[in-house]
């Protein structure tokens, strides 16, 4: 018996090699309800033994028609729907959507509002990457990582609840501001979270980074080349792990990101291990940004006070003053009055570039809203990168791509 048998390279070669006899290929459907597909993704695969010869991802099981819904409601009414795109980082989605509409309305929000948004978006990034990390660990057999990261996410959820009133679906932003100012003492509790999170993160990452089993399952597995990543429109940590230094927070700063100092981790190989390392480093950088935001937290207004036809007046004024009551009534019934035009805004979300393309004909309702979801684009590369990999590596690959089906299917 020959012993020159090394996975996965020989398996990959076998996928394209001529066979002496043509064994029957097996077709296998994985999902839509399967623990490794992180939601309702289905993979229609064709297998030659253990090696994939074809993979067709089937998406759409969570399609709710968000774009159709958006055409039929006012701009502020759509904010809760953005929570349900990438439901692991609703605060980041809220911010991306609000900035897109504000760009269309040519509306500047005050520095304090920008700082609150950056702070919450970075906390959402930590929370989303923690979940991605925990689920990835679980996929490759490391149970304790999930428990550690869920523990830290619980601390974050408590902070979100105190800020927005909700743990999961926050609906925090409004067009022209946020729904409320930060509570007293909340910033010091965020700092306290960061203080205990940093050593805890190092401990959690140390469970995987130098772990032999983890490395065996991820290093050199699911390599996405730089050219492929760009051609398929990958964004976020998945693109950066392939060696493209594209971070919209650095390259096209929005919401005051240019004031903060942070590094953009870039991978060299584009395998599952690089994607894991990029996410780990991004969490460290997110904490760094959080600390900087809090250190120079601006005072002043937390909503655009001059945006009279866009941001609803304070509640106590509505109940006591006729003019504010009328103004509030108009904003609730007709929606914030946004001028006609077309705008496309992309924000650097935990999963990648979340884009909103809004076509307005004026008035309170968009004519067309397209949501460019990073998970959708990231998943489209599966049909290419899965071919030639082992069946068990597909699970690793899915975990490392870190997608959310709520966002993919919209």
């Amino acid at each position, binding site marked *: 018996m020959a012993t020159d048998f090394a996975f996965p390279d020989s398996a990959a070669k076998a996928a394209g090699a001529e066979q002496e006899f043509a064994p029957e290929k097996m077709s296998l459907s994985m999902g839509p309800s399967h623990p490794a597909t992180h939601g309702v993704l289905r993979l229609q695969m064709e297998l030659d033994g253990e090696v994939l010869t074809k993979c067709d991802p089937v998406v759409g099981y969570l399609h709710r028609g968000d774009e159709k819904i958006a055409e039929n409601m006012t701009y502020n009414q759509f904010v809760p729907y953005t929570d349900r795109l990438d439901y692991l980082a609703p605060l980041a989605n809220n911010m991306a959507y609000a900035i897109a509409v504000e760009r269309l309305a040519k509306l500047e929000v005050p520095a304090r509002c920008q700082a609150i948004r950056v702070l919450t978006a970075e906390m959402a990034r930590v929370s989303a990457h923690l979940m991605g990390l925990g689920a990835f660990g679980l996929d490759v057999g490391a149970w304790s990582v999930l428990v550690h990261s869920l523990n830290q996410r619980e601390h974050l959820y408590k902070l979100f609840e105190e800020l927005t009133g909700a743990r999961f679906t926050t609906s925090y932003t409004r067009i022209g501001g946020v729904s409320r100012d930060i509570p007293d003492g909340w910033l010091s509790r965020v700092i306290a979270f960061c203080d205990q999170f940093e050593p805890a993160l190092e401990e959690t990452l140390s469970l995987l980074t130098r772990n032999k089993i983890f490395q065996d399952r991820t290093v050199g597995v699911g390599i996405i080349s730089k050219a492929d990543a*760009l051609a398929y429109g990958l964004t976020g940590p998945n693109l950066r792990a392939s060696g493209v230094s594209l971070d919209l927070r650095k390259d096209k700063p929005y919401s005051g990101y240019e004031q903060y100092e942070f590094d953009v981790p870039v991978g060299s190989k584009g395998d599952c291990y690089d994607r894991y390392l990029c996410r780990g480093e991004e969490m460290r950088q997110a904490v760094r940004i959080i600390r900087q935001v809090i250190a120079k937290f601006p005072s002043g207004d937390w909503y655009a006070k001059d945006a009279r036809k866009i941001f609803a007046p304070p509640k106590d004024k509505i109940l006591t003053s006729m003019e504010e009551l009328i103004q509030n009534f108009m904003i609730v019934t007709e929606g914030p009055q946004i001028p006609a035009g077309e*705008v*496309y805004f992309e924000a650097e979300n935990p999963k990648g570039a979340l884009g909103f393309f809004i076509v307005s004909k004026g008035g309170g309702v*968009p004519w067309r809203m397209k949501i460019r979801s990073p998970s959708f684009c990231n998943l489209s590369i599966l049909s290419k990168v899965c071919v030639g990999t082992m069946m068990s590596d597909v699970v690793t690959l899915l975990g490392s791509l870190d997608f959310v089906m709520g966002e993919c299917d919209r």
Partner: protein
Amino acid sequence: MSASVDAITSLKSTFPSVTDRPSSDCPAVNVPTGELISVLKSLRDEQAFDLLSDVTAIDWAEGASPRFTAVYHLYSTTSHAAIRVATPCTGDDAAPTVPSVVPLWPGANWHEREAYDMFGITFEGHPDLRRILMWDGYPYHPLRKEFPLAGIETVLPDSEVAEETKAKVIAAPMMGGPFVASAGEMNLTDAEPRAKDESWSERSAKPEA
């Protein structure tokens, strides 16, 4: 931003038929359908717009000319410039057509499948044009303006499944609701929250077309 303005200036000298498109942010151009591929190829190869962020379409409602516009968002990972390219779809309302850009960016594959699914736009030269978000055999294109928000009841695509489950029709998901506002110029009465299509609901049958 200046990089994308330069890009448009040199694009216009190569392709005289390219015109400016009104935009609230990044520079945008209108391109005739016939020159779409060569314009995008020149942007990708000569102006380094290497990342295709998004492909989508706009339905300007029945009677508009052109009714459908295909929109492409390009981004340059080197100069960090963004550009929007729009092209009108040719063909009639039932089967609007636009050339596929999958040969230039493989990532356009799913975006174009989605635009086909939602608007019924045929992308000529697409390797695998089939539905992506809705199921195979679904008869409508839901993001077209004439498709009601409430949905339309649909026959189950698989007759064997229908036989087994005894449910031959999938009920429209939001019949009789929800309460919505409408786009565009309107008076206050029309803008009040109301049911989108009040001519039929759960209690009164849909009138024959």
